[in-house]
């Protein structure tokens, strides 16, 4: 009996700690300071909190795929992906689509048939209004680990682009910047939201410039760089700063020389006739 009271006590304390922590963090953010170092969850769970945060983030992906583990085929990312791949292979075996040797089949018969029927093998995504169902898991991923930059960026993107709530996305991403001042991902997403969803080019330029500065110092791949640079160039173009936009597009061509889309954008901004005039 004692053990139940102990468990109840511990769980109650965790939730009480969470509430106090949320209040404390909110208060410190209002004061302009990061509440991270004073986070009770953080102090209690340490690194385990990060694991829970990652699990919650993966759960958001699982929700997007109708409760099924990873369909992207990225086996390195999580054990769950491998588990799902294994499930699919087993299902294929049951349907005679697999190259698995016939010798192995007779050892599995009655019970596996029930097991196979229990599995969900269809592939589907959340649609329309259903998409908001992933938000709680993004929320918990952030709550559990305010250093989870990807969760902030993805959460901001979903709120603004998919769910058409740019104001909420901006609030979330600004909170993300308070906790992760060196994250190019969050700056880039915030800039993107200002540019695409708010048409606020001035703010977009500010955040994208910061994102560019940070991504240049990071080990991000060329596709991420292209994304940040393209948005920044677009913000410059919208502000009428054509030269700066061209400068950024040309920088893209340094690490992506054959990119036709960028070449087209350069042509659009700076048609050949203008080039000739400039040469004269």
């Amino acid at each position: 009996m004692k053990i139940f009271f102990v468990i109840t006590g511990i769980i109650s304390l965790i939730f009480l700690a969470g509430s106090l922590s949320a209040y404390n963090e909110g208060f410190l953010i209002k004061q302009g300071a990061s509440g991270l170092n004073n986070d009770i969850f953080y102090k209690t769970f340490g690194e385990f909190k990060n694991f829970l945060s990652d699990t919650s983030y993966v759960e958001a992906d699982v929700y997007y795929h109708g409760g099924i583990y990873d369909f992207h085929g990225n086996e390195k990312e999580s054990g769950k992906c491998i588990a799902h791949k294994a499930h699919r292979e087993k299902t294929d075996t049951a349907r005679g689509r697999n190259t698995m040797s016939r010798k192995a089949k007779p050892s599995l018969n009655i019970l596996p048939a029930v097991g196979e029927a229990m599995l969900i093998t269809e592939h589907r995504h959340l649609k329309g209004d259903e998409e908001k169902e992933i938000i709680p898991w993004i929320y918990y991923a952030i709550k559990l680990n305010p250093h989870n930059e990807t969760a902030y960026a993805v959460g901001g993107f979903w709120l603004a682009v998919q769910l058409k709530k740019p104001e909420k996305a901006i609030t979330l991403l600004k909170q993300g910047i308070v906790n992760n001042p060196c994250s190019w991902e969050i700056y880039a997403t915030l800039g993107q939201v200002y540019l695409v969803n708010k048409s606020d080019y001035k703010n977009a330029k500010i955040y994208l410039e910061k994102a560019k500065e940070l991504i240049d110092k990071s080990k991000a791949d060329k596709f991420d760089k292209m994304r940040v640079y393209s948005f920044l160039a677009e913000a410059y173009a919208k502000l009428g700063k054509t030269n700066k936009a061209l400068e950024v597009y040309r920088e893209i061509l340094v690490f992506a020389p054959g990119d036709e889309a960028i070449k087209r954008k350069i042509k659009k901004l700076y048609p050949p006739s203008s080039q000739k005039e400039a040469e004269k």
Partner: protein
Amino acid sequence: MKSLSKIFALAAHAFKELVRKKDFYVFLFLFLGLVFFFYNESFFGMRGVSRYLKDIGFSLITLFSIIIAVSFAAKQIPSEIESKTIYPLLAKPVSRTHLILGKFLGSFFISGIAFTAFYLIYLSFIFARGEAANAVLLAQSYLFSIFLLGLLSAIAVFFSLFFTVAANLTVTLLLYFFIYWYNGILRELILSSPKTLSRLYGALYYLLPHFEFYDTRIRLVHLWDPLPAWVVISVFIYTLIYISLMIWAACSVFKRKSL
């Protein structure tokens, strides 16, 4: 007929424990507290988000009912032996088989009633939140959870003849979670191992209880189609066979056990 009344008398006695002891109330208030907390959560001010509540709520009621089933079943026989109440009980016209059957049914009823109470609260919360649910799937989820509780009660009663209450609780719960999480590995081993090893793994596959059969959470939460009738019937028959085997084994062991 007399045998049945003896078994039900023993089961009714176990049921009184549910009312008298505080375990159920602790879980009930804990569940209410947690579900109320999650119900009132606000996610960046988004409205109409409800699937997470269905998911977390169902996981919680399953977990709490499992703990109730296993903990009650695990302490039925050892507590009778420890308090020596088993001697006057067996002095009455109650056989050891009756005792095992009565204790199993008692634990099964206790956990079943606890789960039903949790499930009704759970349904009221998810409907209040406006979450859609398939009635057939809701019924299937309820049935499958009841089957699972029966199976776990039978296993815990069987283990209670060998282990102390704490050890039984640990072993049964570990077995449950291990099979629930890692059942796929055994199947992979059967398919990928050489013939002799594959047979050994195959034997294990049929010997170990398939707790994964009772998991309808993903279907329920993500609004997938209900299970076909043949699967429900097969799982019911499987559960019945497994429970019968466990109870038969428990009766056989208990008959030979010196008290």
